[in-house]
Protein backbone atom coordinates (compact mmCIF):
# COMPACT_ATOMS: atom_id res chain seq x y z
CA UNK A 1 0.00 0.00 0.00
CA UNK A 2 2.59 2.53 1.13
CA UNK A 3 4.95 1.51 -1.65
CA UNK A 4 2.28 1.81 -4.32
CA UNK A 5 1.34 5.23 -2.96
CA UNK A 6 4.96 6.35 -3.25
CA UNK A 7 5.06 4.89 -6.74
CA UNK A 8 1.89 6.67 -7.86
CA UNK A 9 3.01 10.03 -6.51
CA UNK A 10 6.40 9.55 -8.17
CA UNK A 11 4.82 8.56 -11.47
CA UNK A 12 2.58 11.61 -11.38
CA UNK A 13 5.53 14.00 -11.07
CA UNK A 14 7.45 12.29 -13.84
CA UNK A 15 4.43 12.19 -16.17
CA UNK A 16 3.64 15.83 -15.63
CA UNK A 17 7.24 16.77 -16.34
CA UNK A 18 7.67 14.74 -19.51
CA UNK A 19 4.41 16.17 -20.82
CA UNK A 20 5.43 19.77 -20.35
CA UNK A 21 8.01 20.73 -22.94
CA UNK A 22 7.96 24.35 -21.79
CA UNK A 23 9.10 23.29 -18.33
CA UNK A 24 12.05 21.37 -19.74
CA UNK A 25 13.17 24.18 -22.04
CA UNK A 26 12.39 26.99 -19.58
CA UNK A 27 14.44 25.57 -16.75
CA UNK A 28 17.47 25.14 -19.02
CA UNK A 29 17.86 28.82 -19.88
CA UNK A 30 19.31 29.89 -16.53
CA UNK A 31 22.09 27.28 -16.28
CA UNK A 32 23.05 27.84 -19.91
CA UNK A 33 23.27 31.57 -19.31
CA UNK A 34 25.60 30.99 -16.37
CA UNK A 35 27.75 28.61 -18.38
CA UNK A 36 28.07 30.98 -21.33
CA UNK A 37 28.38 34.31 -19.50
CA UNK A 38 30.55 33.13 -16.63
CA UNK A 39 32.26 30.11 -18.14
CA UNK A 40 33.38 31.92 -21.25
CA UNK A 41 33.36 35.42 -19.76
CA UNK A 42 35.46 34.80 -16.66
CA UNK A 43 37.41 31.83 -18.08
CA UNK A 44 40.42 33.86 -19.29
CA UNK A 45 40.74 35.73 -15.96
CA UNK A 46 40.54 32.46 -14.02
CA UNK A 47 43.23 30.94 -16.23
CA UNK A 48 45.53 33.95 -15.80
CA UNK A 49 45.16 33.60 -12.04
CA UNK A 50 46.57 30.12 -12.41
CA UNK A 51 43.36 28.24 -11.49
CA UNK A 52 42.97 26.31 -14.75
CA UNK A 53 39.79 25.71 -16.74
CA UNK A 54 36.94 27.79 -15.29
CA UNK A 55 34.30 26.34 -17.60
CA UNK A 56 35.04 22.85 -16.30
CA UNK A 57 35.20 24.22 -12.76
CA UNK A 58 31.67 25.62 -12.85
CA UNK A 59 30.03 22.67 -14.64
CA UNK A 60 29.32 20.87 -11.32
CA UNK A 61 28.25 24.21 -9.81
CA UNK A 62 25.81 25.02 -12.58
CA UNK A 63 24.38 21.49 -12.58
CA UNK A 64 23.88 21.83 -8.81
CA UNK A 65 22.25 25.21 -9.31
CA UNK A 66 19.76 23.87 -11.80
CA UNK A 67 18.96 20.99 -9.46
CA UNK A 68 18.64 23.32 -6.47
CA UNK A 69 16.10 25.62 -8.07
CA UNK A 70 14.11 22.98 -9.94
CA UNK A 71 13.87 21.04 -6.66
CA UNK A 72 12.91 23.94 -4.42
CA UNK A 73 10.33 25.20 -6.89
CA UNK A 74 8.84 21.77 -7.16
CA UNK A 75 7.38 22.43 -3.72
CA UNK A 76 5.08 24.90 -5.46
CA UNK A 77 3.21 21.88 -6.78
CA UNK A 78 1.89 21.35 -3.25
CA UNK A 79 0.46 24.88 -3.12
CA UNK A 80 -0.86 24.44 -6.64
CA UNK A 81 -2.53 21.17 -5.67
CA UNK A 82 -4.02 22.80 -2.62
CA UNK A 83 -5.53 25.53 -4.75
CA UNK A 84 -6.84 23.19 -7.41
CA UNK A 85 -8.05 20.64 -4.93
CA UNK A 86 -5.97 17.62 -5.81
CA UNK A 87 -4.17 17.84 -2.48
CA UNK A 88 -7.41 16.89 -0.68
CA UNK A 89 -7.67 13.76 -2.78
CA UNK A 90 -4.23 12.62 -1.62
CA UNK A 91 -4.73 13.76 1.97
CA UNK A 92 -7.75 11.55 2.58
CA UNK A 93 -6.22 8.51 0.89
CA UNK A 94 -5.74 5.55 3.23
CA UNK A 95 -1.96 5.77 3.15
CA UNK A 96 0.38 7.63 5.45
CA UNK A 97 1.08 11.22 4.56
CA UNK A 98 4.76 10.44 4.92
CA UNK A 99 4.42 8.11 1.94
CA UNK A 100 2.58 10.83 0.01
CA UNK A 101 5.31 13.31 0.79
CA UNK A 102 8.06 10.81 0.07
CA UNK A 103 6.58 9.94 -3.31
CA UNK A 104 6.31 13.60 -4.20
CA UNK A 105 9.90 14.29 -3.17
CA UNK A 106 11.18 11.24 -5.01
CA UNK A 107 9.29 12.19 -8.17
CA UNK A 108 10.48 15.78 -7.97
CA UNK A 109 14.04 14.56 -7.37
CA UNK A 110 13.87 12.32 -10.42
CA UNK A 111 12.71 15.26 -12.51
CA UNK A 112 15.47 17.51 -11.13
CA UNK A 113 18.04 14.80 -11.79
CA UNK A 114 16.85 14.56 -15.39
CA UNK A 115 17.30 18.32 -15.73
CA UNK A 116 20.78 18.09 -14.24
CA UNK A 117 21.62 15.31 -16.68
CA UNK A 118 20.44 17.42 -19.62
CA UNK A 119 22.69 20.26 -18.45
CA UNK A 120 25.59 17.80 -18.14
CA UNK A 121 25.00 16.49 -21.65
CA UNK A 122 24.94 20.04 -23.02
CA UNK A 123 28.23 20.89 -21.33
CA UNK A 124 29.72 17.71 -22.79
CA UNK A 125 28.60 18.78 -26.25
CA UNK A 126 30.27 22.14 -25.54
CA UNK A 127 33.53 20.33 -24.85
CA UNK A 128 33.43 19.37 -21.14
CA UNK A 129 35.05 15.98 -20.42
CA UNK A 130 34.29 14.24 -17.09
CA UNK A 131 37.22 12.25 -15.69
CA UNK A 132 35.57 8.83 -16.00
CA UNK A 133 32.38 6.99 -16.81
CA UNK A 134 32.15 5.73 -13.24
CA UNK A 135 32.53 9.34 -12.15
CA UNK A 136 29.47 10.26 -14.21
CA UNK A 137 27.44 7.41 -12.71
CA UNK A 138 28.42 8.41 -9.18
CA UNK A 139 27.78 12.02 -10.16
CA UNK A 140 24.18 11.05 -10.99
CA UNK A 141 23.86 9.63 -7.48
CA UNK A 142 25.08 12.93 -6.02
CA UNK A 143 22.55 14.78 -8.20
CA UNK A 144 19.78 12.54 -6.87
CA UNK A 145 20.79 13.17 -3.25
CA UNK A 146 21.01 16.94 -3.77
CA UNK A 147 17.65 16.85 -5.54
CA UNK A 148 16.03 14.80 -2.76
CA UNK A 149 17.27 17.18 -0.09
CA UNK A 150 15.97 20.32 -1.78
CA UNK A 151 12.73 18.74 -2.94
CA UNK A 152 11.98 17.81 0.63
CA UNK A 153 12.90 21.34 1.71
CA UNK A 154 10.60 22.82 -0.95
CA UNK A 155 7.75 20.60 0.26
CA UNK A 156 8.37 21.59 3.87
CA UNK A 157 8.10 25.26 2.91
CA UNK A 158 5.03 24.67 0.77
CA UNK A 159 3.26 22.79 3.53
CA UNK A 160 3.50 25.93 5.67
CA UNK A 161 2.57 28.45 2.97
CA UNK A 162 -0.62 29.17 1.11
CA UNK A 163 0.16 31.65 -1.62
CA UNK A 164 2.41 31.20 -4.59
CA UNK A 165 3.93 34.70 -4.59
CA UNK A 166 5.04 34.25 -1.01
CA UNK A 167 6.50 30.88 -1.86
CA UNK A 168 8.41 32.26 -4.83
CA UNK A 169 9.84 35.07 -2.72
CA UNK A 170 10.95 32.73 0.00
CA UNK A 171 12.49 30.24 -2.41
CA UNK A 172 14.52 33.02 -4.02
CA UNK A 173 15.38 34.45 -0.62
CA UNK A 174 16.67 31.03 0.41
CA UNK A 175 17.91 29.65 -2.90
CA UNK A 176 20.11 32.56 -3.93
CA UNK A 177 22.40 32.50 -0.86
CA UNK A 178 22.39 28.69 -0.88
CA UNK A 179 23.65 28.83 -4.44
CA UNK A 180 26.08 31.76 -4.33
CA UNK A 181 27.71 30.75 -1.03
CA UNK A 182 28.12 27.10 -1.97
CA UNK A 183 31.31 27.46 -3.93
CA UNK A 184 29.44 26.62 -7.11
CA UNK A 185 31.11 29.54 -8.91
CA UNK A 186 34.35 30.09 -7.00
CA UNK A 187 36.92 27.96 -5.18
CA UNK A 188 36.01 28.05 -1.48
CA UNK A 189 39.53 27.21 -0.41
CA UNK A 190 40.77 30.54 -1.80
CA UNK A 191 38.07 32.59 -0.06
CA UNK A 192 38.41 34.55 3.20
CA UNK A 193 38.02 32.76 6.52
CA UNK A 194 34.51 34.19 6.94
CA UNK A 195 33.40 32.98 3.54
CA UNK A 196 34.94 29.56 4.11
CA UNK A 197 33.00 29.31 7.35
CA UNK A 198 29.70 30.27 5.76
CA UNK A 199 30.25 27.91 2.84
CA UNK A 200 30.72 25.08 5.32
CA UNK A 201 27.26 25.78 6.75
CA UNK A 202 25.64 25.62 3.31
CA UNK A 203 24.43 22.09 2.54
CA UNK A 204 24.67 22.73 -1.18
CA UNK A 205 28.47 23.15 -0.78
CA UNK A 206 28.73 19.43 -0.09
CA UNK A 207 26.66 18.50 -3.13
CA UNK A 208 28.79 20.73 -5.36
CA UNK A 209 31.96 19.35 -3.80
CA UNK A 210 30.95 15.72 -4.26
CA UNK A 211 29.94 16.38 -7.86
CA UNK A 212 33.28 18.09 -8.47
CA UNK A 213 35.13 15.11 -7.02
CA UNK A 214 33.31 12.69 -9.34
CA UNK A 215 33.31 14.82 -12.49
CA UNK A 216 36.65 16.67 -12.17
CA UNK A 217 38.59 14.42 -9.83
CA UNK A 218 39.21 16.96 -7.06
CA UNK A 219 37.29 18.55 -4.20
CA UNK A 220 38.00 19.98 -0.77
CA UNK A 221 35.78 18.29 1.83
CA UNK A 222 36.31 14.69 0.83
CA UNK A 223 33.62 12.29 -0.29
CA UNK A 224 32.91 10.83 3.15
CA UNK A 225 32.05 14.19 4.66
CA UNK A 226 30.04 15.17 1.56
CA UNK A 227 27.85 12.07 1.72
CA UNK A 228 27.50 12.24 5.49
CA UNK A 229 26.24 15.83 5.39
CA UNK A 230 23.91 15.23 2.42
CA UNK A 231 22.53 12.05 3.97
CA UNK A 232 22.09 13.61 7.40
CA UNK A 233 20.37 16.67 5.98
CA UNK A 234 18.01 14.52 3.90
CA UNK A 235 16.97 12.56 6.98
CA UNK A 236 16.49 15.75 9.01
CA UNK A 237 14.46 17.61 6.38
CA UNK A 238 12.35 14.53 5.64
CA UNK A 239 11.57 14.16 9.33
CA UNK A 240 10.52 17.80 9.47
CA UNK A 241 8.42 17.46 6.31
CA UNK A 242 6.78 14.29 7.55
CA UNK A 243 5.82 16.10 10.73
CA UNK A 244 4.35 19.12 8.95
CA UNK A 245 2.67 17.03 6.30
CA UNK A 246 0.93 14.80 8.79
CA UNK A 247 -0.34 17.82 10.72
CA UNK A 248 -1.50 19.69 7.66
CA UNK A 249 -5.14 20.83 7.50
CA UNK A 250 -7.02 21.85 4.40
Amino acid sequence: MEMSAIYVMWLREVKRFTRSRSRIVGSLSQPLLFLVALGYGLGPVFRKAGQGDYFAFIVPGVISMSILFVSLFNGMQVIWDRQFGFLKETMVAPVSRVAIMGGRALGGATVAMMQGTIVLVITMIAGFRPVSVIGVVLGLLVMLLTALLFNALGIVLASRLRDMQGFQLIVNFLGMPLFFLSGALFPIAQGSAGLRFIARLDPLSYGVDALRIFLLGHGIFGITLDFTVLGGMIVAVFALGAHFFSRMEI
Partner: protein
Amino acid sequence: MDAILAAEHLTKRFGENPAVVNDVTFSVAPGCVFGFLGPNGAGKSTTIKMLTTLLRPTSGTIRVAGYDPTTHPGAVRRAFGIVFQDPSLDDDLTALENLEFHGILYGVPKETRRARIRELLALVDLTDRKASLVREFSGGMKRRLEIARGLLHHPQILFLDEPTLGLDPQARNHLWGHVKNLNRDEGVTVFFTTHYMEEADNMAERIAIIDRGRIIAEGSGQELKQKTAADSLEGAFLALTGNTLREETGGSMDQMRQARRIWGGGSRR
Protein backbone atom coordinates in the same frame (compact mmCIF):
# COMPACT_ATOMS: atom_id res chain seq x y z
CA MET B 1 -26.22 -1.50 16.77
CA ASP B 2 -23.56 1.11 17.43
CA ALA B 3 -23.44 4.19 15.26
CA ILE B 4 -20.87 4.05 12.46
CA LEU B 5 -20.61 7.81 12.39
CA ALA B 6 -21.09 10.03 15.41
CA ALA B 7 -20.31 13.56 16.45
CA GLU B 8 -20.74 14.93 19.96
CA HIS B 9 -20.65 18.64 20.80
CA LEU B 10 -18.58 19.14 17.68
CA THR B 11 -17.32 22.72 17.32
CA LYS B 12 -15.02 24.38 14.81
CA ARG B 13 -13.83 27.93 15.09
CA PHE B 14 -11.29 29.66 12.85
CA GLY B 15 -9.30 32.15 14.90
CA GLU B 16 -11.50 34.61 16.73
CA ASN B 17 -14.41 34.32 14.29
CA PRO B 18 -17.76 32.92 15.45
CA ALA B 19 -17.92 29.14 15.36
CA VAL B 20 -18.62 27.75 11.88
CA VAL B 21 -19.81 24.52 13.42
CA ASN B 22 -21.30 25.04 16.85
CA ASP B 23 -21.98 22.23 19.31
CA VAL B 24 -23.19 19.75 16.71
CA THR B 25 -24.31 16.30 17.83
CA PHE B 26 -25.63 13.54 15.58
CA SER B 27 -25.18 9.87 14.87
CA VAL B 28 -25.65 7.68 11.83
CA ALA B 29 -26.49 3.96 12.02
CA PRO B 30 -24.56 1.52 9.82
CA GLY B 31 -26.13 1.08 6.40
CA CYS B 32 -28.16 4.26 6.72
CA VAL B 33 -28.49 6.91 4.02
CA PHE B 34 -28.15 10.16 5.88
CA GLY B 35 -28.96 13.57 4.40
CA PHE B 36 -27.15 16.55 5.87
CA LEU B 37 -28.97 19.65 4.67
CA GLY B 38 -28.57 23.34 5.20
CA PRO B 39 -28.28 26.71 3.47
CA ASN B 40 -24.95 27.91 2.06
CA GLY B 41 -22.39 28.58 4.73
CA ALA B 42 -24.29 26.59 7.35
CA GLY B 43 -21.25 24.46 8.20
CA LYS B 44 -21.91 21.34 6.11
CA SER B 45 -18.57 21.16 4.36
CA THR B 46 -16.62 22.09 7.47
CA THR B 47 -18.34 19.23 9.31
CA ILE B 48 -17.46 16.84 6.51
CA LYS B 49 -13.85 18.03 6.56
CA MET B 50 -13.65 17.25 10.26
CA LEU B 51 -15.23 13.83 9.77
CA THR B 52 -12.74 13.05 6.98
CA THR B 53 -9.53 14.05 8.83
CA LEU B 54 -8.94 17.22 6.79
CA LEU B 55 -9.62 19.57 9.70
CA ARG B 56 -9.15 19.13 13.43
CA PRO B 57 -12.16 20.12 15.56
CA THR B 58 -11.78 22.98 18.03
CA SER B 59 -13.70 20.89 20.54
CA GLY B 60 -16.05 17.92 20.70
CA THR B 61 -15.56 14.32 19.71
CA ILE B 62 -16.00 12.34 16.52
CA ARG B 63 -16.23 8.62 15.85
CA VAL B 64 -15.88 7.28 12.35
CA ALA B 65 -16.14 3.50 12.07
CA GLY B 66 -15.15 3.32 15.72
CA TYR B 67 -12.11 5.58 15.48
CA ASP B 68 -11.35 9.16 16.38
CA PRO B 69 -10.05 11.02 13.28
CA THR B 70 -7.71 13.18 15.37
CA THR B 71 -5.92 10.25 16.98
CA HIS B 72 -6.37 7.49 14.38
CA PRO B 73 -6.51 9.29 11.03
CA GLY B 74 -5.16 6.24 9.20
CA ALA B 75 -7.91 3.91 10.44
CA VAL B 76 -10.56 6.51 9.63
CA ARG B 77 -9.19 7.09 6.14
CA ARG B 78 -9.37 3.39 5.43
CA ALA B 79 -13.08 3.44 6.27
CA PHE B 80 -14.49 6.11 3.98
CA GLY B 81 -14.63 7.40 0.43
CA ILE B 82 -15.61 10.89 -0.58
CA VAL B 83 -16.83 12.99 -3.47
CA PHE B 84 -15.77 16.54 -2.69
CA GLN B 85 -17.92 19.57 -3.32
CA ASP B 86 -15.16 21.44 -5.15
CA PRO B 87 -12.86 20.03 -7.81
CA SER B 88 -10.03 17.74 -6.75
CA LEU B 89 -8.86 16.19 -10.02
CA ASP B 90 -5.38 16.45 -11.48
CA ASP B 91 -5.90 18.47 -14.67
CA ASP B 92 -2.58 17.41 -16.14
CA LEU B 93 -3.44 13.73 -16.11
CA THR B 94 -5.92 11.92 -18.33
CA ALA B 95 -9.31 10.79 -17.08
CA LEU B 96 -8.10 7.20 -17.00
CA GLU B 97 -4.92 8.13 -15.10
CA ASN B 98 -6.95 10.02 -12.51
CA LEU B 99 -9.04 6.91 -11.94
CA GLU B 100 -6.08 4.52 -12.02
CA PHE B 101 -4.08 6.59 -9.55
CA HIS B 102 -7.02 6.79 -7.20
CA GLY B 103 -7.53 3.04 -7.41
CA ILE B 104 -3.87 2.40 -6.62
CA LEU B 105 -3.84 4.92 -3.75
CA TYR B 106 -6.87 3.19 -2.28
CA GLY B 107 -5.44 -0.28 -2.75
CA VAL B 108 -8.12 -1.57 -5.14
CA PRO B 109 -6.73 -4.80 -6.67
CA LYS B 110 -5.85 -4.55 -10.34
CA GLU B 111 -8.61 -6.78 -11.76
CA THR B 112 -11.33 -5.13 -9.71
CA ARG B 113 -9.91 -1.73 -10.55
CA ARG B 114 -9.97 -2.32 -14.29
CA ALA B 115 -13.50 -3.71 -14.19
CA ARG B 116 -14.87 -0.91 -12.01
CA ILE B 117 -13.19 1.79 -14.06
CA ARG B 118 -14.82 0.40 -17.19
CA GLU B 119 -18.20 0.25 -15.47
CA LEU B 120 -17.93 3.72 -13.92
CA LEU B 121 -16.72 5.40 -17.10
CA ALA B 122 -19.83 4.02 -18.77
CA LEU B 123 -21.99 5.16 -15.85
CA VAL B 124 -20.80 8.76 -16.18
CA ASP B 125 -20.66 8.55 -19.96
CA LEU B 126 -16.96 9.30 -20.36
CA THR B 127 -15.75 6.07 -21.95
CA ASP B 128 -14.88 7.82 -25.23
CA ARG B 129 -12.88 10.51 -23.48
CA LYS B 130 -10.90 8.40 -21.06
CA ALA B 131 -7.57 9.13 -22.79
CA SER B 132 -8.09 12.92 -22.82
CA LEU B 133 -6.37 15.23 -20.37
CA VAL B 134 -8.82 16.43 -17.73
CA ARG B 135 -7.78 20.01 -18.54
CA GLU B 136 -9.71 19.70 -21.82
CA PHE B 137 -12.93 18.68 -20.05
CA SER B 138 -15.98 20.88 -19.53
CA GLY B 139 -17.16 21.59 -16.00
CA GLY B 140 -19.88 18.96 -16.20
CA MET B 141 -17.50 16.31 -17.49
CA LYS B 142 -15.04 17.03 -14.68
CA ARG B 143 -17.83 16.69 -12.18
CA ARG B 144 -18.87 13.34 -13.61
CA LEU B 145 -15.30 12.08 -13.56
CA GLU B 146 -14.95 13.23 -9.98
CA ILE B 147 -17.99 11.19 -9.03
CA ALA B 148 -16.74 8.12 -10.88
CA ARG B 149 -13.48 8.40 -8.99
CA GLY B 150 -15.24 8.71 -5.64
CA LEU B 151 -17.15 5.48 -6.32
CA LEU B 152 -14.11 3.49 -7.43
CA HIS B 153 -13.41 1.87 -4.12
CA HIS B 154 -16.22 0.57 -1.96
CA PRO B 155 -15.77 1.96 1.53
CA GLN B 156 -17.82 1.42 4.66
CA ILE B 157 -18.91 5.04 4.57
CA LEU B 158 -19.38 7.20 1.51
CA PHE B 159 -19.40 10.98 1.87
CA LEU B 160 -21.04 12.88 -0.97
CA ASP B 161 -20.71 16.65 -0.63
CA GLU B 162 -23.25 18.15 -3.05
CA PRO B 163 -22.48 15.43 -5.58
CA THR B 164 -25.20 16.42 -8.03
CA LEU B 165 -24.22 20.08 -8.28
CA GLY B 166 -23.94 20.91 -11.97
CA LEU B 167 -25.17 17.55 -13.23
CA ASP B 168 -27.95 17.13 -15.76
CA PRO B 169 -31.00 15.08 -14.71
CA GLN B 170 -29.75 11.97 -16.54
CA ALA B 171 -26.39 11.96 -14.78
CA ARG B 172 -28.13 12.69 -11.50
CA ASN B 173 -30.39 9.70 -11.95
CA HIS B 174 -27.49 7.40 -12.80
CA LEU B 175 -25.58 8.61 -9.77
CA TRP B 176 -28.36 8.05 -7.26
CA GLY B 177 -29.21 4.71 -8.82
CA HIS B 178 -25.63 3.60 -8.38
CA VAL B 179 -25.45 4.90 -4.82
CA LYS B 180 -28.67 3.08 -3.96
CA ASN B 181 -27.21 -0.16 -5.27
CA LEU B 182 -24.02 0.31 -3.25
CA ASN B 183 -26.08 0.93 -0.16
CA ARG B 184 -28.37 -2.07 -0.76
CA ASP B 185 -25.84 -4.62 -2.01
CA GLU B 186 -22.79 -3.76 0.06
CA GLY B 187 -24.35 -1.99 3.03
CA VAL B 188 -22.35 1.17 2.40
CA THR B 189 -23.39 3.95 4.76
CA VAL B 190 -24.04 7.15 2.82
CA PHE B 191 -23.65 10.64 4.25
CA PHE B 192 -24.60 13.30 1.72
CA THR B 193 -25.38 16.98 1.34
CA THR B 194 -27.48 18.55 -1.40
CA HIS B 195 -29.50 21.61 -2.19
CA TYR B 196 -32.08 19.55 -4.10
CA MET B 197 -34.75 18.76 -1.53
CA GLU B 198 -36.48 16.23 -3.75
CA GLU B 199 -33.29 14.23 -3.91
CA ALA B 200 -32.91 14.34 -0.17
CA ASP B 201 -36.53 13.27 0.33
CA ASN B 202 -36.15 10.35 -2.08
CA MET B 203 -32.78 9.13 -0.89
CA ALA B 204 -32.33 9.87 2.79
CA GLU B 205 -33.74 7.66 5.53
CA ARG B 206 -32.68 10.25 8.08
CA ILE B 207 -32.15 13.96 7.61
CA ALA B 208 -30.42 16.54 9.78
CA ILE B 209 -30.82 20.22 9.02
CA ILE B 210 -27.97 22.49 10.01
CA ASP B 211 -28.15 26.27 10.02
CA ARG B 212 -25.57 28.79 11.22
CA GLY B 213 -23.45 25.98 12.59
CA ARG B 214 -26.20 24.36 14.66
CA ILE B 215 -28.43 21.40 13.99
CA ILE B 216 -31.96 22.73 14.11
CA ALA B 217 -33.97 19.64 13.20
CA GLU B 218 -33.49 15.92 12.73
CA GLY B 219 -35.71 13.07 11.64
CA SER B 220 -37.03 11.26 8.59
CA GLY B 221 -38.34 13.35 5.70
CA GLN B 222 -41.87 12.44 6.79
CA GLU B 223 -41.27 13.56 10.36
CA LEU B 224 -39.80 16.87 9.27
CA LYS B 225 -42.79 17.51 7.02
CA GLN B 226 -45.25 16.68 9.80
CA LYS B 227 -43.38 18.78 12.30
CA THR B 228 -43.61 21.86 10.09
CA ALA B 229 -46.98 21.02 8.56
CA ALA B 230 -45.41 21.36 5.12
CA ASP B 231 -46.41 19.23 2.14
CA SER B 232 -42.90 18.92 0.75
CA LEU B 233 -39.39 18.69 2.21
CA GLU B 234 -38.61 21.97 0.50
CA GLY B 235 -41.46 23.59 2.41
CA ALA B 236 -40.24 22.05 5.65
CA PHE B 237 -36.69 23.21 4.94
CA LEU B 238 -37.81 26.78 4.29
CA ALA B 239 -40.03 26.78 7.36
CA LEU B 240 -37.08 25.69 9.49
CA THR B 241 -34.32 27.84 8.03
CA GLY B 242 -36.32 30.93 7.06
CA ASN B 243 -36.56 32.70 3.75
CA THR B 244 -33.60 35.05 3.92
CA LEU B 245 -30.75 34.55 1.49
CA ARG B 246 -27.41 33.46 2.87
CA GLU B 247 -24.12 34.79 1.74
CA GLU B 248 -21.62 32.18 0.67
CA THR B 249 -18.98 33.20 3.14
CA GLY B 250 -16.74 30.20 2.63
CA GLY B 251 -14.81 31.61 -0.31
CA SER B 252 -14.11 35.09 0.97
CA MET B 253 -13.47 33.87 4.48
CA ASP B 254 -10.92 31.44 3.15
CA GLN B 255 -9.18 34.31 1.43
CA MET B 256 -9.19 36.43 4.55
CA ARG B 257 -7.75 33.61 6.56
CA GLN B 258 -5.18 33.14 3.88
CA ALA B 259 -4.17 36.78 3.87
CA ARG B 260 -3.93 36.88 7.62
CA ARG B 261 -1.32 34.24 7.84
CA ILE B 262 1.06 33.61 5.04
CA TRP B 263 2.73 31.19 7.40
CA GLY B 264 0.24 28.46 8.34
CA GLY B 265 -0.35 27.14 11.83
CA GLY B 266 -0.53 30.13 14.19
CA SER B 267 -4.06 31.31 14.57
CA ARG B 268 -5.35 27.94 13.54
CA ARG B 269 -4.70 25.95 16.62
